[in-house]
């Protein structure tokens, strides 16, 4: 039987500088209090994973970090800026420094792959002319291994290809932090592993810090330097994959039930 080789989570270049600091985050939808005092620190160069079951508020947490959702209480600092106190223009400037990969990839379906990738560049004048725009598009398409998809529409791509193009669109602005919302959900195990490998490879190339939201322990094993288990809206346990694997906590054990 062939033994699969798995890439190790990158350990180098993690510094003590905190690029994201979340304190006492509270968010409720009606009577349902999804986050109830959640804390999080992301250090520069680190891959932090937030592990939790479906509906536990993982996605809500990263949507609050980019202020797609307004938290009810708590504080969020990203790259030294108080996210909740920023005006719209300052927030937009900060968002350019944060990449966000959506679970659904969220590609603009009326645009081709090329137009999807050009869209953020044109909005922020990051490419000086058509040639540099083309060069940047080519660079990220090569980085995600899909140079031949320029003229295709999202509806012509498979799930894994959409995720790759979503990743390319996220990285084209060269963000310092990338937030991944369930990057492998809905993909077969082989494509899921390819996506995780791609995330690690791109993280090394683009020198990003990441928060990965998932309930997939394979992602935790392959990519995370540190894992926070989110349970009932709060930090339940924190540690490395091996720490969690050895834990006797019933909530943590429940994630390993099929492993």
């Amino acid at each position, binding site marked *: 039987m062939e033994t699969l080789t798995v890439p190790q989570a990158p350990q180098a270049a993690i510094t003590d500088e905190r690029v994201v600091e979340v304190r006492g985050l509270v968010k409720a939808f009606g009577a349902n209090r999804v986050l109830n005092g959640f804390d999080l620190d992301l250090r520069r160069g680190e891959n932090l994973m937030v592990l939790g079951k479906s509906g536990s508020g993982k996605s809500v947490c990263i949507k609050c970090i980019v202020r797609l959702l307004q938290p009810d209480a708590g504080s969020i600092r990203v790259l030294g800026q108080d996210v909740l106190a920023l005006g719209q223009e300052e927030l937009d400037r900060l968002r350019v420094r944060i990449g*966000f990969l959506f*679970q*659904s990839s969220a590609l603009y379906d009326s645009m081709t792959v090329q137009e999807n990738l050009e869209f953020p560049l044109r909005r922020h004048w990051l490419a000086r002319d058509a040639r540099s725009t083309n060069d940047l598009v080519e660079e990220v398409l090569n980085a995600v291994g899909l140079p031949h998809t320029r003229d295709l529409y999202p509806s012509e791509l498979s799930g894994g290809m959409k995720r790759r193009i979503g990743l390319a669109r996220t990285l084209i*602005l060269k963000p310092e932090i990338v937030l991944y919302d369930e990057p492998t959900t809905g993909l077969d195990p082989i494509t899921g592993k390819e996506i995780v490998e791609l995330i690690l490879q791109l993280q090394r190339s683009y020198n990003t810090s990441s928060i990965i939201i998932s309930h997939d322990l394979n992602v935790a094993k392959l990519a995370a330097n540190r894992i926070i288990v989110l349970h009932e809206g709060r930090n339940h346990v924190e540690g490395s994959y091996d720490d969690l694997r050895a834990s006797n906590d019933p909530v943590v054990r429940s994630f390993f039930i099929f492993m």
Partner: protein
Amino acid sequence: MLEEVGDITAFAGRFFANAFHARFEWSELFRQCFLNGYRSLPLVGITAFIMGLVLTVQSRPTLERFGAASMLPAMVAISVVREIAPVITALIGAGKIGSSMGAELGSMKVTEQIDAMEVSGTNPFRYLVVTRVWSTTLMLPVLVVLSDAIAIWATWIGVNIKDDVSWDLFYRQVFDSLEFSDFVPAFIKSYFFGFAIGIVGCYRGYATEKGTEGVGQAAHTAVVTASLLIFILDLIAVQITDILGLN
């Protein structure tokens, strides 16, 4: 109902707060003008032609009964310019443009495309809503003028089914009977109709929830609400022109 009126009013307020922003999305505005204006021309043109022809054919017997058949071009032209062309064109706009805006933005909302735009540092309201509302506001009056012209031409064809009237004579009869006060209120109200179509279509799309079911609902409620609003605005316009003595 009142809550809905409040929400649409707040949405319109948000439009005005963003409508004159320094960094305007010109290329998207031109694209929307092309889609909402130019692409609506065939439907508006065909409808205007049929409207002018049918109105002429159906009005003739009544006017003949009163010995006023010679008034046919003037009567149809005044009806078309003052009321029928603006309202019918606006209703076509509500059906075609309003529903497509509701469905398009609704679909973008439920598939997180609007969120993706926002986190990439682009203001989706300015990019998607402001450009669309400006495009309908600017394009509908153009479509109404075109609809007027085609309906009047169809009236000439309708008149010539039984009579033999030259274009020159017909043209003189029509424009002798039309006054400035027939054109201006109709032209002004068509801006409001266009604005209503854009605001309602975008509001419905932007407020979409509950996945694909919500997208369908956004499309159909956009048409219903915009159509209703067009009639309400028309009623208000009639009252105002009456008060100003323009009727």
